[in-house]
C-alpha cells in the first residue's frame, strides 16, 4: 500500500499554500505548505497544541484560514458556501472531502442507516432506495449491517466510530480527514476502528490522519508530518520519521508515544 503514492500520477487532490491561522493574537499555524496526492496516506503527528487539529480542520474549511489558500483539485476554495466565479464553494469542497471526528458526532435522533444516508439523500439528492443500498454496503464493510436499525446511543464507542466512517464514505469522498478518531475509545475498541482505516488505505483512499498511535501511523502512512509550534518541523517516510528519528525533539516525542 505504501507504493500507492508512487504508482499513480502525482496529482494533488487537496493542498494548502502559506496557510496561517490565528486565534486573536495567538498564531497557531505559522505558514504551512502541504499537498495530499491521490492515494496518499499522510499521518500528522506532534505534541498537544502544535496545531494538528487546526490544520486538518482548515483542509475542509471547518476553520477559516487567516492567510493562505486551500485548493481542491487545483481549484481555489472561496469563502462562500456556493461556487462563485472561478472559486469553488465550501459546500462543494466538503461534499468531496470527508471528515471523521474524535467524538463521533453521530446524529442521535437518526438510526445508524439514516445517519449514513443523510448525506447522499439531503446533500446529493440521491433517491432513498439507492442511498439505502449504498449505506448497507458500507455498513457491511465496517461490520455493522445488523445494527442498521439501532440508534447511536445503543452502540459502543468503536461501533459509533465505524458508523461515522461509513457516514463519511457514503458521500464517496476523494479525501478523508481523520482527527484522533480513536482517542475517545476504550483501549480494547481501538483495534476494530484502526483495522477499518487500514483497509481504506489499502483500497487507495487518500487520507490525512491525526493520531497519537505511532505504530499505527508507521504502518498505514506513506508520509509522516511532524508538526511543532505551528510549522511542519519534520517530514518524510514513516521509516525515517517514526522508526528512526534523527532530530532530538522528534525522537523524544516519538519515544513517549511508542508502545
Amino acid at each position, binding site marked *: 500500500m505504501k507504493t500507492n503514492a508512487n504508482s499513480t500520477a502525482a496529482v494533488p487532490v487537496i493542498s494548502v499554500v502559506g496557510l496561517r491561522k490565528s486565534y486573536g493574537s495567538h498564531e497557531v499555524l505559522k505558514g504551512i505548505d502541504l499537498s495530499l496526492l491521490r492515494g496518499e496516506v499522510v499521518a500528522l503527528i506532534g505534541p498537544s497544541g502544535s496545531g494538528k487539529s487546526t490544520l486538518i480542520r482548515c483542509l475542509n474549511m471547518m476553520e477559516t484560514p487567516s492567510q493562505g489558500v486551500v485548493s481542491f483539485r487545483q481549484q481555489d476554495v472561496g469563502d462562500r458556501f456556493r461556487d462563485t466565479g472561478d472559486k469553488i464553494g465550501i459546500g462543494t469542497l466538503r461534499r468531496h472531502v470527508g*471528515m471523521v471526528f474524535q467524538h463521533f*458526532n453521530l*446524529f442521535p435522533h437518526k438510526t445508524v442507516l439514516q445517519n449514513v444516508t443523510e448525506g447522499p439523500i439531503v*446533500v446529493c439528492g440521491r433517491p432513498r432506495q439507492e442511498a439505502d443500498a449504498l449505506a448497507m454496503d458500507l455498513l457491511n464493510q465496517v461490520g455493522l449491517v445488523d445494527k442498521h436499525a439501532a440508534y447511536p446511543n445503543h452502540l459502543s464507542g468503536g461501533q459509533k466510530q465505524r458508523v*461515522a466512517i461509513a457516514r463519511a464514505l457514503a*458521500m464517496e469522498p476523494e479525501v478523508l480527514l481523520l482527527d484522533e478518531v480513536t482517542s475517545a475509545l476504550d483501549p480494547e475498541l481501538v483495534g476494530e476502528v484502526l483495522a477499518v482505516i487500514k483497509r481504506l488505505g489499502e483500497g487507495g483512499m487518500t487520507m490525512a490522519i491525526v493520531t497519537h498511535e505511532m505504530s499505527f501511523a508507521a504502518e498505514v502512512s506513506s508520509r509522516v508530518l511532524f508538526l511543532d509550534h505551528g510549522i511542519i518541523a519534520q517530514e518524510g517516510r514513516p521509516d525515517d520519521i517514526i522508526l528512526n528519528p534523527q532530530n532530538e525533539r522528534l525522537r523524544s516525542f516519538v519515544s513517549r508515544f511508542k508502545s
Partner: protein
Amino acid sequence: MTYNWDFHSVWQYYDLFVWGLWISVVYTFASILFGVLIGFVACAARLSRWRVLNLMARAYQEIFRCTPLLVQLLWFYYAFPLLVGGSIDNRVAALLTLSLYVGAFYAEIFRSGIVSIDKGQREAAAAIGMSPWQSMRRIVLPQALKRMLPSFINQSVIQFKNTSLVSVISVADLAYMAAVVNGQTYRPLESYTVMALLYIAMLLPLTQAADWIEKRLRVSD
C-alpha cells in the same frame, strides 16, 4: 360560625362563567400563536451575527421579562395611546401585551434549546456538505425542539393563568366574569371558588400531560 354554602344562586349565572372561560381560552391561544411568531423572530435575531439585531432583540426580551405583566397591561392601555395619539381598544391592548410578554419568554426557550445542542452536531452536518440551513432544519432543530417542549408547555400553562390579569382593563375573561357574578349575588366565596375550580379543570390535564411527555422524552434520550 357555620357558613351557608349556596352554589345554586351562583350557578344561575353559569353562562357568564362559560363565556368568560371561552374568552380566557381564546386570549391564551391567540397570544400563544402570536407569541410563537414573535419568539421565533426574536430568537433568530438573537442568533444572528448582526449586532444591531441582536441588541434590539435583547432589549425587547429584557423589557418584557423584567416588568410585571400587570404593569405592561396598564401601560399599553393607558399610557401607550397618549404616546402615539388616539386610543386603543382594550381587547387589542390585552392581546398585544399578552403576545409580546409570552414572546419574550418563548424567544429565550427557543434560543437556549438551540444553543444547547452540541456544536459537534453542526460540524458533522457541515462536514457532509450540508448548508447551514439544512443543518439547522434536519439536525439541530429536531433535537432542540424535543429539549424545548417541556419548558414550552410550562410557559403556556403560565400564560393561561396570566390571562386573568386582562380583567383589570375590563376584558371580560373568566376572572372578570367571576367578579360580575359576585356583584350580582354577593356570594364571593362561591363565585371565586367556581372560578378557581374552572382554572384547575383546564390546567390540570395539561400539567399532567407535560409531566408525561417529559418522562417519555427522558427515556428516549
